[in-house]
């Protein structure tokens, strides 16, 4: 009887926590479920076993020009390229291969359709992000007509089914007007502000960090990818950010740390070591020293069979809207 009550209490606590979480989601104009003028894909990876397919759509009834930047985490440098999307046009490409321009691509091939422009390959060993900005003749303009998704696929051909998808984070125009210069002020006036506070629910990767479906002999690792909203593509200068972690277990016990310091781009697994005690489910709130965007990917593996599956999802923001800037490189 006591166990039954405890289980119900726990379940109710979980529901209450979920409701609380839902209520506290601040909508700062930085969203993943509505079009924007700046799209950020925080996690773009290519390797021998994985590739990322980028999809971007123009949701407007006029042609749209886009300037995109691949951010390489190794150098914090970027390569940029241009897209031209017709009205309502969707497009896609694989990050490893890029996409050429060939109006005579065969029907139903990967290059079929109106090629949006020349897209360079990120190469076979890339980790970083993609940022795309609406422009007119290279001058930034806030029309809020872009939406995007990233699909991180397993290409090894093995038994793993590590295919994840997340929505690009879309930053909308602010309350004021855009001055069309190369400094995109994410200050609420020119463009919406990013947030410093983000909340992630996760299954801790410690015993009993078990996949609730797979049960015993399973493991779950939750990976967070984060980039600062302060980006300077003109100078390859990395912004250093400190992420302070505050964790809660299912008993509402709050712990903190470890903190993460990174510059330019980071991808790390949530460390639940501070959870005390560890529970099958937990939540972490990251407070950053400057505004960031994040995406999460969790890997669930069967340790007996040696196979895994993955899923990515976007992250809730919980406030802390603050100003930052994205500086584009000047065009000739």
């Amino acid at each position, binding site marked *: 009887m006591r166990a039954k009550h405890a289980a119900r209490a726990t379940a109710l606590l979980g529901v209450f926590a979920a409701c609380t979480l839902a209520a506290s989601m601040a909508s700062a104009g930085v969203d993943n479920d509505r079009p924007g003028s700046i799209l950020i894909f925080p996690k773009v990876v290519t390797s021998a076993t994985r590739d990322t397919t980028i999809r971007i759509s123009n949701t407007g009834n006029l042609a749209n020009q886009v300037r995109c930047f691949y951010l390489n985490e190794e150098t914090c440098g970027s390569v940029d390229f241009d897209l*031209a999307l*017709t*009205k309502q*046009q969707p497009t896609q490409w694989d990050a490893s291969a890029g996409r050429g321009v060939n*109006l*005579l691509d065969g029907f139903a091939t990967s290059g079929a359709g*109106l090629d949006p*422009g020349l897209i360079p390959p990120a190469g076979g060993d890339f980790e970083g992000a993609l940022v795309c900005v609406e422009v007119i003749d290279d001058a930034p303009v806030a029309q809020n007509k872009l939406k995007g998704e990233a699909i991180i696929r397993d290409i090894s051909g093995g038994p793993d089914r590590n295919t994840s998808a997340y929505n690009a984070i879309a930053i909308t125009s602010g309350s004021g007007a855009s001055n069309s210069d190369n400094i995109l002020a994410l200050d609420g006036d020119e463009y919406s502000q990013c947030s410093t506070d983000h909340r992630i629910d996760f299954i801790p990767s410690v015993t009993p960090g078990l996949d609730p479906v797979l049960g015993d002999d399973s493991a779950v690792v939750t990976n967070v990818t984060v980039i600062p909203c302060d980006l300077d593509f003109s100078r390859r200068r990395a912004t250093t950010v400190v992420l302070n972690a505050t964790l809660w277990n299912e008993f509402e016990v709050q712990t903190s740390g470890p903190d993460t310091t990174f510059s330019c781009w980071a991808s790390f697994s949530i460390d639940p070591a501070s959870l005390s005690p560890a529970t099958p489910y937990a939540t972490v709130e990251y407070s950053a020293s400057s505004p960031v965007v994040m995406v999460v990917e969790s890997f669930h593996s069967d340790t007996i069979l040696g196979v895994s599956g993955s899923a990515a999802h976007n992250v809730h923001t919980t406030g802390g809207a603050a100003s930052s800037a994205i500086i584009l490189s000047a065009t*000739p």
Partner: protein
Amino acid sequence: MLKNARLALLAGIAGLAMATAGTAQAQTSSDESAAILVWPKVVYDSTGTLFGSPTDTLINLSSTATSSLKQAHCFLVNATSHCSNSGEACLTSASCGGGVCQPGWNEIDFNVYITQEQPLAWLASDGMSFNDLPIVGPGICSNQPRICFSNANCGGGTCLIGPNGQNNIGTGIPPVPEDPFIGSLTCIQFDPTQNPPAPDQSPTTNALIGEGTIFTAAGSAIPVDGAKYNAVGFRATADAGADTDNVLQLGTPAVGGIPTADYTGCAGTLIVNHYFDGATDPVATGANPSGNGLTSTSLTLVPCGNNLLTQVPGSVVAQFLVFNEFEQRFSSSTRVDCVYNRQISNIDTPNNNRSIWSTGVSGTLTGQTRIQGVGNSPSGNGLTGIATLSIETSTASSSAAYSLDQMGTNAGDLLTIP
């Protein structure tokens, strides 16, 4: 003695004249975009008949215009000489078996439509046919997302061929007219929006840059050797008095300054810094010998002015002052008709070893040669060109081309086009 003194005085005066001619800065350049480009040396020899090894030239022409289509109206000048007895191509009469190596001069012209920011390149031997043009279609209709090849496909819209609606249609670049071939190429930026197209003196002029690379199949040791040079550029002045007729005024005449220059002028003096022929490559000596290569330099000169309408080539007398590392000075002169291409130690004599440009006569490894054009040519006396250094070892040869330095401004040349 008196004669020597007089000669010394005259030489001093000549030197002073050369030294002071055109104290205003020269204005043609090899490192800026321009409205007229000259490639002084375009060569092709598929079998090595003239040049000893198969040779070809890659012509690069690029637009620096950021927003508009430009037209380059080009003139390919064929200056290949032929033996009077056999008609074979020749460099000197010595190869004509009793005949005379007669210089030739004729030109063909063609158009290149080059889109904004576009680079183009073609081999002199191949030219560029329609099939080689990068942007000729299909395009996209302006009024609907539909592939098209002409406006007729667009139901009232315009067929936009090319990312910015510009295309290369209308371009046709012929291959050089004979093999072997020696000549030069001049391209003039035209404004295609005018009817008929005319030399471009609009605010978006001076949008062409170019290079030439002379490739030689140098043998099994070094299969491909390249010598790359920047085309010589004349910038349009776009002054109020500059006109767009077919007489292109290069530089301002010294007397009265009339008519107004349409384009910048040729240099008053060209300066070549070179090894004297026969010098041992200094990299061959010392700790890391590379096979005792011997150096030679060839000089290519073309008159700045030409009458392409009446097919009268420019003809200029080139005066040379040669300085060695002991500050000693020699002089010589020669006539430059159309295209002058010669090893420097053959400028003043067929006997290289006795030339003032040979190490045995000049006494040092390097020298400075100053070149000034004189004469009564109606097209003017300006000269431009390039130099090519070659180093021969026992197993291979290598060459490199470089621009001539410039000083002063020539007193106005005329380029008359059809």
